[in-house]
């Protein structure tokens, strides 16, 4: 009796979802996971005292004692980078969580309903997208308390329209599909339709959007950090780079100071890019 009535189990679903991803996705995921593991597991192998200023000799190249060398302030770069990785990833994730939540909600609502509120939000989205965010950000960020959370929140304020717009476009087309009408005939309310019928359909879109928001937020945060806007008490990859550039590490050929963080950032950006590329492909299918 139950043999045929079983829908796919959650486990099977997850397996089938992962089966639908291509190699691009896994390469991207691998790159990002490597960094996550580096930041997470690394915590267990380090001694916080190694990043005290003047703890080691200044600007010494990689050695057995300091695998990644030390910076011009006498800090162990491996320890510093292990501590910096979670901060940097956090900014991206916090921004993306806020922006994606707001963007998805408003995108769903403005795509589904009609009315003056919808017109208002739609206009807001259009305007926000047309405003050069980084520019405004650069000019206002220096006036705000320098904390990574504050930066993430500001980034999210400018990022959500980029989620809301495509979500809205998707909902606009889904809204006309017959299954929405059938749901209505089954007495589903508008919000049930939005969340049970629409939302699952645009999940790949939201996921792709989430991933690129993470990437863009890190991009912007590192950019701000390089301009000297951002907190200096929390180690982040942007901060390590900023200190390296302030100390002319490139010119002075202190390659161990700027190349590893640069590679790490590239890993993040390339990894997230590959993931979003793959998700985007799934979403368009």
């Amino acid at each position: 009796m139950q043999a045929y009535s079983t829908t796919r189990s959650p486990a099977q679903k997850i397996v089938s979802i992962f089966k639908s991803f291509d190699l691009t996705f896994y390469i991207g995921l691998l790159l990002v996971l490597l960094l996550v593991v580096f930041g997470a597991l690394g915590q267990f192998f380090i001694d916080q005292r190694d990043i005290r200023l003047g703890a080691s000799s200044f600007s010494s190249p990689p050695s057995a004692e300091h695998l990644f060398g030390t910076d011009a302030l006498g800090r162990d770069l491996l320890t510093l980078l292990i501590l910096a990785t979670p901060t940097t990833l956090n900014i991206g994730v916090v921004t993306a969580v806020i922006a994606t939540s707001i963007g998805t909600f408003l995108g769903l609502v403005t795509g589904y309903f009609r009315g003056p509120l919808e017109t208002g939000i739609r206009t807001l989205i259009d305007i926000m997208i047309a405003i050069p965010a980084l520019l405004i950000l650069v000019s206002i960020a220096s006036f705000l308390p320098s904390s990574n959370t504050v930066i993430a929140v500001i980034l999210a304020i400018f990022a959500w329209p980029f989620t809301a717009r495509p979500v809205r476009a998707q909902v606009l087309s889904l809204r006309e599909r017959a299954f929405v009408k059938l749901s209505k005939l089954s007495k589903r309310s508008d919000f049930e339709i939005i969340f049970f019928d629409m939302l699952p359909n645009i999940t790949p879109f939201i996921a792709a959007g989430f991933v690129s928001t993470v990437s863009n937020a890190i991009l912007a945060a590192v950019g701000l950090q390089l301009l000297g806007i951002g907190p200096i008490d929390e180690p982040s990859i942007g901060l390590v780079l900023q200190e390296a550039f302030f100390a002319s590490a490139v010119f002075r050929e202190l390659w161990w100071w700027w190349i590893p963080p640069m590679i790490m950032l590239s890993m993040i950006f390339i990894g997230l890019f590959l993931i979003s590329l793959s998700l985007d492909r799934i979403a368009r299918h």
Partner: protein
Amino acid sequence: MYSRKLSMLLIVLLVLFQAFLVSGQDVAREETLIIGSDLTSNVAADDIFNPYLPAVQRSLGMAQLMEEMLFYTNYETNELMPWLATGYDTSDDFTEYTIHLRDGVKWSDGEAFTADDFVFTINMLKTNPTLRGAAGIERAIASVEALDDLTVKLTLNDPNPRYIQQSWAVRISSSPPIVPEHIWADKDPSSFPNFDLDKGWPVFTGPYVLTSSSQDQRIYNRRDDYWGVETGFTDLPAPRRVIVATAGVDEVVGARIQNNEVDSLAALSANTLVTVQSRNPNVIGWTDESPFGYTDPCPFYLEFNTTREPWDDPKMRAALSYIIDRDLVANIAFEGQGMAAQFLFPAYTGLMDFLDSLSDEFAASAYRYDPEASAAIMESKGYTLQDGVWRDGDGNSIVIDFLMLGFNIGPTWGRSIQILSQQFEDGGFEVNVSDLDFGPYWERANQGMWGVRMAWSCGSITDPHTTLSNFHSDLVMPIGETASRNFGRWDNPEYSALVDQLGQMAPSDEGYFDLAREAMTMFLADVPAIGLQQQLRVNPFNTTYWVGWPTADNNYVNPQSWWSTAAIIIHTIEPAG
């Protein structure tokens, strides 16, 4: 066949381009002096040459090449070098100064430089309070008059034995330049840009005239009708052309001097200089070895807000002073090439001699790294160390409300924030850092909204009075109101009385140094501020095209290329080879 034709064409084009490139420069590189300015980014005001407007960038050649000062102070010898003036007399009470101007000095447009120009400049500043430095002139000078074409009499409001040195002899960076009355008389000085190349403006007395000015560079050409040659006072400087260019961001400047693109840079980190020297041995610093740099007159120091708990207690201030390892702070800030400041004085000969005479007083003071002494004070105040933090009976810790400039002002600041925070925490204090931009920093600093701050002290050069006077009780303002000095509101009437007394005396006066020692002892006992580190400025020179640069071995003048005193350097250097 076709590709061969194409490559021939390319070669011809390249040769043509090369020809164009060469013809682009009408003064040979060997005769051109290129100075990398003290600015990392481009100049916003490339058409403002009014030295009294906030927008002006005098360090971009104006101060060194066009303006000339009445006197220059040679930091190396503490000697006053008369230039546009020949000397001065002073009344016994130090309230009247008579300045004698040099005969035969001419403006670049051929008009004679006279006492009237001097008088005009002073009066212009006295009547236009928003001009740069006007407030200082107004405060100091009661009246000015020209006794004859070459003699000016200044009457001061308050007696000041070191007035000329402080105000007219390049105490720090520069002094007010005198402007030609025949051009400025009918202009509004608060908006006159003093820039019109067709009219030959700006007009000053120096050996160079401005030929072009843009965001990223200024070009000055030597004029052969310079008054110094006619009067036999000095020769023409050797460079036919001087270019002052924006140096660029930290990563780029080193490459510029290494590639002989510039002959001088305003700033480079000592370690970058080492890198440059390893690739281009022609580049030199002030010294051949660490610290390579020259001491800036404004050392960094820590100041306490003496109206705030717990810093209203000298013992507590001492407790904090004991936990600061100045050598480490200096070395972190300057990547191992730093120099700790014993006090708030720059490491100049006269001041160092004075400090040396105070060695016993220093030994008895809190001006040293001694965590145990700090712990002793804390325990005596009823604090106990719990998990590395001092807590009072109620379990409250001390949180230092630490005001700093944001690290985008410069790496020194960012690093100092980190190393000082680290040391405070090691010493059992908690820290709450406010690293702010200039605006908010300045507002909070002068209104007293902070507990401890890091600042720079531009005071004494030759004798201790100026720095000491910055902590005078008269300067104390209520919290929330803008103070102009003594932001820590240290109120010590006894000390202030001594400073007043010192102000009436010349350093050469008998008993001056004893009095100064007495004031210093009070200062050291009360700890309103703690010296941290010398600002070491490495300004490298390139000997590929020009030689005769000032160095520690050839210290005919201090080496800052952006100061007015750089005029002396330009008059001294000679072509290499």
